[in-house]
């Protein structure tokens, strides 16, 4: 196991002035600054990231009707490389990494010894021996402490690798017009590399919107030319930059969860009953008990299943009416408190009032009757209290054929 750390005095000194800038710039900052008419920023892992650029509702429609560009550079990224990288990641994560072929991505999660989820993320297999792990939280100590005995290098590459999500029905048309020949062959979760500037760009058919879409990773120094290449090519395909609010609407429609928004990660939970096993946050499908040998959390997960499963489930909910139920309490028969809404919107695409919710296990089965959501809607300094009927429905809330069509449509 090796990892890289600059510790010499001159390196440390050069980094001293960071305290003068509390939010880091993304490699795409000049372009974002120019487009951010709202000047609305939020903190994403210490970066200055746009919450909305010009109009969050219209930005959402860019995702669903044209091509939306969202800067994912602040996403935490680790390079994991070496002869034993596959074995190391197989030991670390829930899914069978030996089945992940080079040039493919899978969505996965990893747990502590007690089977509680440390994070979820995407694992890119860039070559037989090289992986990239993308996630919400930081895990360097966990990764390094798990690595002894494996021939593997682990390095954080958040700052050196820039990323863009290009999402929406015309996203492939934008890639095609930008000259990424062969990108039409990419099936969902495929990865390929294409020449760009003096290097290359890695394009995967992945995303966080449930729509046709791609994620592009590039060396930070070639970030701006990539942005310009997409926007130049995308002029006729309606390409627009978007902020997080628009993306959040799309991801809820897609039924996707966000660490530390829809569940609390094990290394951050102050209250020890807040941690969750994969089965409790809808990630039970990842747990591959058929893969040989130990992976972290395996015994705890198996034991919990033997005892009938852990205490909670995370499900999709459809709620009467049109008032979003964010952070509302869920009741059974209007009286017994059985869960909490972690994310909720009126879905523009489904025309339904939807929510992602954590429930006590027995109340989370499909079709369980008599669930109610208590919504406190503040209207002109007065709460309007609504008690609305709700039912458990499958996720995603919105399923788009264009997401998986290969070759992709030229909308």
């Amino acid at each position, binding site marked *: 196991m090796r990892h890289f750390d600059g510790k010499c005095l001159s390196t440390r000194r050069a980094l001293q002035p960071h305290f003068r800038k509390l939010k880091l710039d993304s490699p795409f900052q000049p372009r974002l600054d120019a487009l951010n008419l709202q000047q609305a920023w939020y903190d994403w892992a210490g970066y200055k990231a746009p919450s909305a650029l010009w109009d969050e509702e219209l930005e959402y429609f860019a995702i669903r009707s044209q091509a939306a560009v969202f800067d994912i550079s602040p996403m935490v990224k680790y390079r994991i490389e070496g002869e034993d990288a596959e074995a190391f990641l197989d030991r670390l994560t829930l899914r069978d990494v030996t089945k992940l072929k080079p040039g493919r991505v899978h969505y996965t999660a990893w747990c502590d010894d007690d089977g509680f989820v440390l994070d979820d993320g995407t694992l890119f297999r860039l070559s037989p021996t090289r992986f990239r792990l993308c996630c919400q939280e930081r*895990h360097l100590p966990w990764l390094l402490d798990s690595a002894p005995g494996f021939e593997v290098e682990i390095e954080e590459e958040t700052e050196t690798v820039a990323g863009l999500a290009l999402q929406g029905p015309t996203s492939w048309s934008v890639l095609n017009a930008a000259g990424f020949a062969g990108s039409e062959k990419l099936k969902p979760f495929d990865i390929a590399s294409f020449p760009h500037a003096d290097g290359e760009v890695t394009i995967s058919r992945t995303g966080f919107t449930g729509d046709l879409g791609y994620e592009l990773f590039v060396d930070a120094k070639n970030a701006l030319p990539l942005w310009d290449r997409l926007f130049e090519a995308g002029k006729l395909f309606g390409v627009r930059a978007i902020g997080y609010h628009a993306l959040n609407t799309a991801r809820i429609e897609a039924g996707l969860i966000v660490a530390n928004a829809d569940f609390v990660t094990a290394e951050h939970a102050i209250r020890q009953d807040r941690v969750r096993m994969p089965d409790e946050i809808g990630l039970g499908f990842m747990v591959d008990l058929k893969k040989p040998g130990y992976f972290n959390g395996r015994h705890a997960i198996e034991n919990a299943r033997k005892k009938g499963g852990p205490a909670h489930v995370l499900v999709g909910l459809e709620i009467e009416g049109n008032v979003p139920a964010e952070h509302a309490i869920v009741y059974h028969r209007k009286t017994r408190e059985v869960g909490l809404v972690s994310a909720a919107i009126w879905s523009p695409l489904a025309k339904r009032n939807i929510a992602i919710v954590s429930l006590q296990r027995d109340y989370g089965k499909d079709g369980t009757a008599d669930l109610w959501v208590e919504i406190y809607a503040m209207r002109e300094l007065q709460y309007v209290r609504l008690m609305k009927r709700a039912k458990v429905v499958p996720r995603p809330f919105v399923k788009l054929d264009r997401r998986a069509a290969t070759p992709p449509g030229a909308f």
Partner: protein
Amino acid sequence: MKSWDAIVVGAGHNGLVNACYLQRAGLDVLVVEKNEWVGGAAVSRSLTPGFLYSNCSYVCSLFRPEIMRDLELPKFGLQVISYEGGAVFTRDGDYLANYRDHHAHRREFARFSRKDAEAYDRYARDVTRQCRFIQPLLMRTAPDPTSLKPRDIGELLYLGRKFAGLGAREMADTLRFWTMSISDFLDEYFETDVIKANFALSGIIGTALGPMSPGTAYVLLHHYMGEVDGSVGAWGYARGGMGAITKALADSFRASGGTIRTEAEVERILVGNGRAGGVVLAGGEEVRAKLVVSNADVKRTFLKFVEEKELPDIFLRRVKNFRMRGSSGKVNIALDSMPEFPALPPDSPCLRADMHFTDSVERMERAYDDWKAGRWSADPFLDMVIPTTLDPTMAPPGKHFMSCFVQYCPPKVEGRDWTDADRDAFGETVISQIADYSPGFRDRIVHMEIRTPRELEAEVGLTEGNIFQGELTFDQLLFNRPVPGYAQYRSPIGGLYICGSSTHPGGGVMGAPGRNAATEILRDLKRGVKHMSPAHDVI
């Protein structure tokens, strides 16, 4: 002759908190203080024109907000101002800063080690979990585990339920936390010397133990469970120095009808038929009261104010064995200009916070070795702040008050009493360490107050100059503080109570011992405690 309802011996913060609560319950209370000023170890005094020093304690976090509210301390002028993290200077000319912004803090640690930078989250989670376990215990009287009284059983059950509610791993962590050395504890999270030193300092402050001594991990927790306006773990300056706290308490006390007599040193507590009946002041004056509450430490109270024959043997032996060893000194400095620290960028917020020069746990332990040999540390650990960077009331514009807490400093020098020459040599050790990092520092000094355990004991009355009135190790906490069987602020002598930091939950300018003692006294008097707001919830 007038007989008071209660006499409180010593106008320290706990004595005043206690007196305020008793007075507000309708008692007629007299506070007697040997100095001509009030405050004990929470004082602001002007020793040179234009400058105000926080002579002893110097920063505030632990003082309970429930007490500030109940006693209307803001109305009497108390303000506490949060400050930014702090810095440890390294010997190679760099520094490690603590920033309030989460990501700035991480990036700062990452200058030294990316792994340590990210390990901080796990460390913070574990420490926070333990603080949340202890916090609710601060404002409760520790249960007596041998008692069959419903209340003690109830409190024991409460403690047990809290403990059981922790979960297996946290329970194990709690036991480890209360018994481990801070050095071993930090080794489980971090790999970089200066980062470990940065945290270890909270494990040794005020304690006659080194960072490698078992028990010091708890001392760190004790320094983390405070808050400034709900920001848990934050530290701040009391505007006008730490004396602003006791001044507000004294004013609140007087406003509610209480009486304070300064320059009234207690020589002895009057005991007759096993009951306290007042005090005898230096000079022979007797002052009578129905009960006496001592803010003095447990040794001073029972070994000096009370005759040994009045006390049971085992109690007496345990009081004598209570560990209360002097380990620190204090140097207060008036400066005619802001010192420069070339290692720090001139606009660094660290100049407004606590600064340190000990960049490894090893160096801290070596400093402790000197103390064990009966010498002050040749390379001491300093906790240095310049409150006037945020508080304009303590020095003229452009001039500054610097407070240096110094560890280690023995109660006796190689077995003999301190001399003035020793004291000055101790001060010189401190100045020379600062000057190593701040060229021209000596030229800025206008005035200096050097305090060794000798001065702390003589002036404040802290036995051996121990700032916590007894070390904060597990064997001296909860129902063992100060003495098993007497952890509920009562004593073997009827009508004699103790309310200082020698009692649960211990030292620091917290006020909880004073308040808890008032609760017990009022319970004995069958008086109500409606004027005490309930302890804040930990949710």
